[in-house]
């Protein structure tokens, strides 16, 4: 097991190195650089900058250098914990992103938990009571959740909250708690705000989970060991939960690593619409303004989370499913 983890860790580092190279290439793909987008935004307000000034800035920012030189400087900085500076905010990237990533992980982590809490019982029920009214209802509800775009659901929720309750849904905190330290009232305030985005994000993924779980469980339920267990007189709930459900969870656990990036990218528009201070809107803005070190750092950190998530799911799988063994031939 330890050997397996070490091997995985080495592979992880190599993957990350490759990701960093590709990420840096992608953020440089659009034409121009931060300064061209800066000039464009100034020009839109009728302002013009002397080309000499821009040349000067380009040199100060090191933007004129070849790709590999820029990449190497970036990578060397990261190895020392320096992700570079945001051009737009003239601040070290590390100062800007942690709070946002924290919010992202919090909101999207909650969304994952809620998603599982909704999907697991429904999935099990739908498999055990196949083709019952409940199964159909769950299926329809799940598919509606899947088919309605998240941002539209968010908009509808916001509109209903406005017309029915006269409140403006949005943000993660009330003004008085925005900059406060964590405390019980602040946690309460957070949940009072966060339930809406969490619900919106959770509905999108529930249907998929229900369907996967239902399909897996249906396969398992037909197997002889279930019949044997029943014949031996085990209580029905134990028959289902102890073995078939445990096995049906395998595919879900092996995709934990993908959940986070999927949620982050899927939540960009929801965050913009519902005004959530998460990493999504910052990534979006840094990409449009070509604030490349900021965008690069967010992409890289999301990749790190994905890779770590994959490692965790590998370890969990080994723990949960006794049939999976590593190292032995």
């Amino acid at each position, binding site marked *: 097991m330890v050997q397996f983890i070490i091997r995985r860790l080495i592979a992880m580092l190599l993957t990350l190195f490759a990701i960093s190279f590709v990420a840096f290439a992608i953020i440089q793909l659009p034409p121009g650089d931060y300064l*061209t987008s800066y*000039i*464009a935004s100034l020009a839109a307000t009728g302002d013009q*900058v002397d080309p000499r000034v821009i040349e000067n800035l380009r040199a100060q920012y090191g933007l004129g250098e070849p790709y590999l030189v820029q990449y190497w400087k970036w990578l060397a900085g990261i190895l020392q914990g320096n992700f570079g500076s945001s051009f737009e905010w*003239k601040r070290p990237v590390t100062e800007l992103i942690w709070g946002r990533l924290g919010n992202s992980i919090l909101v999207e982590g909650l969304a994952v938990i809620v998603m599982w809490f909704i999907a697991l019982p429904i999935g099990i029920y739908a498999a055990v009571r196949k083709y019952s009214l409940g199964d159909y209802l769950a299926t329809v509800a799940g598919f509606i959740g899947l088919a309605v775009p998240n941002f539209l659901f968010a908009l509808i929720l916001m509109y209903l909250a406005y017309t029915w309750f006269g409140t*403006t849904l949005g943000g993660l905190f009330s003004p008085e708690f925005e900059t406060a330290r964590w405390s019980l009232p602040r946690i309460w305030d957070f949940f009072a705000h966060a339930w809406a985005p969490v619900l919106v994000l959770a509905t999108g993924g529930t249907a998929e989970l229900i369907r996967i779980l239902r399909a897996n469980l249906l396969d398992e339920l037909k197997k002889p060991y279930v019949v044997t267990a029943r014949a031996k007189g085990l209580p029905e709930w134990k028959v289902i939960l102890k073995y078939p459900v445990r096995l049906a969870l395998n595919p879900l656990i092996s995709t934990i690593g993908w959940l986070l990036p999927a949620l982050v990218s899927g939540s960009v528009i929801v965050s*913009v619409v519902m005004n959530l201070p998460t990493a999504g809107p910052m990534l979006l803005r840094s990409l449009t303004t070509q604030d490349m070190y900021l965008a690069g750092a967010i992409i890289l950190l999301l990749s790190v989370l994905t890779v770590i998530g994959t490692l965790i799911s590998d370890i969990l799988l080994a723990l949960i499913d006794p049939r999976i063994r590593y190292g032995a031939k």
Partner: protein
Amino acid sequence: MRKDQFFGLTGAVAIAAILAAAGPALAAGQAPALEALVASGDLPPLEERLPANPLVVEGDSIGTYGGTWRMGMNGGGDNGLIVKTVAYEGLVRFDRDWQTVVPNLAESWEANADATEYTFKLRDGVKWSDGTPFTSADIAFAVEIYKDPDYPAGSWIDNKNNPVNIEVIDELTFKFKFDKPNGMLMDQMASVDGIHITSLQKAYCSQFHPTYNENAAAEAEAKGFSSWALYLQDRCAWGWETIRFANPDLPTLYGWVIETPLTANASRVTWTRNPYYWKVDAEGNQLPYIDNLDMRVSQGGVEELTLAALNGEIDFQERHIATNVNKPLFFDGQEAGDYHLGEVIPSASNTLVLQLNFNHDDPVKRELYQNKDFRVGISHAIDREEIVDVVFTGQGEPFQVAPRPQSPFYDEELAKQYTEFDPDLAIEHLEAAGLTEMNGDGIRLMSNGEPAKITIDVISALRPEWIDILEIMQLQLAAVGVEIELNNIDRTLFYEKRPGNDFDAQVWAGDGGLEVVQEPRYYFPANDESVWAYKWAQWFNGTRPEIAEEPAEWAKEQMELYTQIRSSSSPEERADLMKQILAITKEQFPVIGVSLMPNSYSIIRNNLRNAPESMFNAWLFPTPSPMDPVVWYFE
């Protein structure tokens, strides 16, 4: 404590009564919070904080102190809202009708006959928000820093064709000297551009420059900046640069000072009154009336802001939320949200300006696009009424790119020529332009046998209605045998294509409908935004000599006239010369317009007083600031 306050108050009232007898411009009242600070000795008395001759700002009524003005920013980079709300404090300003230049930080000025020398006199005793005096030295410092190539700001101060040279005469008097006449200086300084010169305090900002502080480079490095120049930009950013509002230590001359700065993660930006603000109301009470500004920062979407406005959580706002689509929603929500709608007249003349590239690299296209018959033909093929009805729910009217009806330069013929929808007439003109043959798809052939297809660059992210308009135009033009293809691209690419000369046509809104003299981009090849004749504009202003091209005779004549405008110090003469330029524009018809930009609206809470029921909206005239929010108050 309560007693002290009481005596402080009666004392102030007594002084006010005495001073009011002496003249309206003398110190009378101040906000209760400041009163308390004065009483406790934390703040000098009002007389010492106000200048000898404070600027008197009149409102419809005398207000009361207090309250918070709530508004919203769209995304973190929305420095525009701040500029338009608090930062418009130049040496001079425009009056509320955008007609004349009136004193602001300068109490008077004089120009010599050929407009090469301007003498300014500052108000005596104006203080920065940290309480130190604002003097000629600060202006001289700003000129010096703007001219420093390491300080990345471009403005009229360091305009390389005619930069400002400053001569300081005494603490309050200084001269701007120019090598060439600069007749438009006062108009420029009264616009939003005027805030450049008053944006840097010498005492604070000089500490980051090696000329004044030999350790500047080392200190910058210690703070994690690779050069002193970057550190200087971070601490003392120019005029309205975003990060300027991220530094609460930077002294300013604004009515409100930053409390919660604009940083990448700020969910709101808040401001509190500047105790040293140098304006008073008609009774001599120190302004502003409103205690605080609260700008909520959205994550780049305006949905939450729209709902907040409907819910009565916004006190005054036009920016971002006042879209055409939202208008019925806001109209219906007036009673529930306890607000009403004010009128906002845009400065832009046109909803969409089609700019065909006169300097196209392909000689066939260049010749065709420069052919007036071709443009007239296209113009007649557009059914503008249909576009106004479909896209703008009937708001607006067919219009060319011309001064708006509210402008003194309005010329009905210029505004209305070639706007009638007449496909037969259109075909006649297109045939006169040499497009007589057609291919099998019904598309006319150019002189080289290629179909007449125009690829139009557009940024739909900026104005979604552009795509709607162009899609209708696509069908209308196809009916007369001209194909257009929409090329929806990113803003950066849009700008990159200009110097590369890699476009058939681009569209933009009709800037310059009210600010006709200052923004003549569509009337003649004036600046980089004159996309229809980009290379000719370079010939005129000399910023990119490597791609400049000699303009046609008529354009040269216009440029000559504009040069005369720049060198004239008489407003009447400038207006007369501008009319001559517009006469040539009318004759040449360089760009094609669609419809008059419809009026917008503002959300005004019902308890907000002195706020404008009608105002212009422009960038050069950065509303609502010229409407003096410092005299607005809550009832």
